[in-house]
């Protein structure tokens, strides 16, 4: 048994242990914090599997962003959590819920066990056509060119999710600013952190987007880092959240999918297929789409965590 195997076994045991702990944790805040740790461990797992793109994604989105969403949700639920925990589910509900959970788990386990071996793969074809886009990172090629439709729809799903969050607003506050107005204390450490970190974070986000052409990285990871910087600025109270009715916000939200659609229909109009890029312009077109998508991802994720509008835009 080599040292790598020992490391992998330890990591797997740790992932399973943290996963079980999250399930049995009674306090939703503790479970949310556990989920962040679980995501970081999964990031290490993806690194061990040499899937650096997925690891970046898991670290930024799976652990960081989803963790922030869950922590926020649990802090909102905190006020009535104890009264709800005191309610005992009925004699029938409990076994039925346990039964259904067991059935779903068994089905998932069976699906994994009965996967075809070797798994069907398109990897050789993706690698063989890597030159078509002028980008060296095969993952970016797949996301932006070979499976561009999925990537575009993924952004639309994000927009639908944001519309879902916004729809929780009261009628009178529609179009207002999300979240509370955070007060700023010029001498607080958070203010100092917020003054120093975002310039570095924004450069890092754009760097990860740019590197995505040839190395692990890409629009989603870069956009997530920029969204985190924006949230930091909002939570430190250095800049207020924008009213959701502002034209610039709406334009930023649709920039990525819109450019994707324009290029897609352009491909149709030029006679090949929806989302068929003209080979000579593939790289500049893809870069333009990626930049627009980074903007959209950053604004969408930032507003998703900022929550539904809670104040009038004027205040």
């Amino acid at each position, binding site marked *: 048994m080599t040292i790598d195997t020992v490391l992998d076994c330890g990591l797997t045991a740790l992932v399973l242990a943290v996963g079980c702990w999250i399930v049995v944790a009674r306090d939703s805040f503790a479970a949310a914090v556990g989920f962040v740790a679980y995501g970081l461990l999964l990031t290490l797992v993806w690194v061990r599997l040499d899937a650096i793109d997925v690891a970046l994604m898991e670290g930024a989105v799976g652990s960081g962003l989803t963790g922030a969403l869950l922590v926020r949700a649990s802090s909102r639920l905190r006020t009535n959590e104890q009264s709800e925990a005191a309610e005992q589910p009925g004699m029938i509900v409990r076994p039925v819920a346990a039964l259904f959970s067991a059935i779903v788990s068994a089905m998932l386990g069976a699906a994994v066990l009965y996967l075809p071996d070797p798994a069907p793969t398109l990897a050789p074809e993706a690698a063989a056509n890597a030159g078509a886009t002028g980008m060296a990172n095969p993952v970016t090629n797949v996301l932006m060119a070979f499976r561009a439709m999925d990537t575009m729809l993924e952004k639309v799903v994000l927009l639908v999710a944001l519309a879902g969050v916004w729809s929780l607003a009261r009628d009178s506050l529609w179009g207002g600013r999300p979240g509370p107005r955070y007060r700023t204390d010029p001498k607080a*450490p*958070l203010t*100092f*952190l917020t003054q*120093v*970190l975002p310039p*570095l974070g924004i450069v890092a986000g754009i760097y990860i987007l740019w590197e995505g052409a040839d190395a692990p990285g890409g629009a989603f990871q870069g956009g997530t880092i920029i969204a985190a910087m924006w949230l930091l600025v909002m939570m430190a109270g250095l800049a207020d959240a924008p009213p959701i009715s502002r034209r610039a916000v709406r334009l930023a939200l649709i920039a990525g999918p819109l450019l994707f659609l324009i290029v897609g229909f352009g491909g149709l109009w030029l006679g090949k297929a929806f989302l068929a890029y003209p080979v000579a312009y593939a790289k500049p077109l893809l870069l333009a789409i990626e930049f627009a998508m980074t903007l959209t991802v950053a604004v969408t994720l930032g507003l998703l965590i900022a929550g539904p509008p809670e104040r009038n835009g004027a205040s």
Partner: protein
Amino acid sequence: MSSVADIFTVITVTAGAFFFMAGTVGLLRFPDALTRLHALTKADNLGLGLVVLGLMPRAGGLLPALKLASVWLLVLFTGAAVSQLIAKAARDGDKDDN
């Protein structure tokens, strides 16, 4: 020459791991939030610093080594700011209890 670098890496990374362990023991054993933070900073600052120092000769060039060092500086900076935030929250929480 390479064996000297190897010994350097082994010593610094081991020392870094020791500080991580000491920090973790402190996190588990210390009585309240402020002392636990005190223990954690040892893991973040010294532990990660020593691990990074040990890995720098193996990074394969000056630029990757500087990247590692900047990761450490970033963790130092955010770690310091975040522990201030947690400490303030813990102290304010204590006040509410009394």
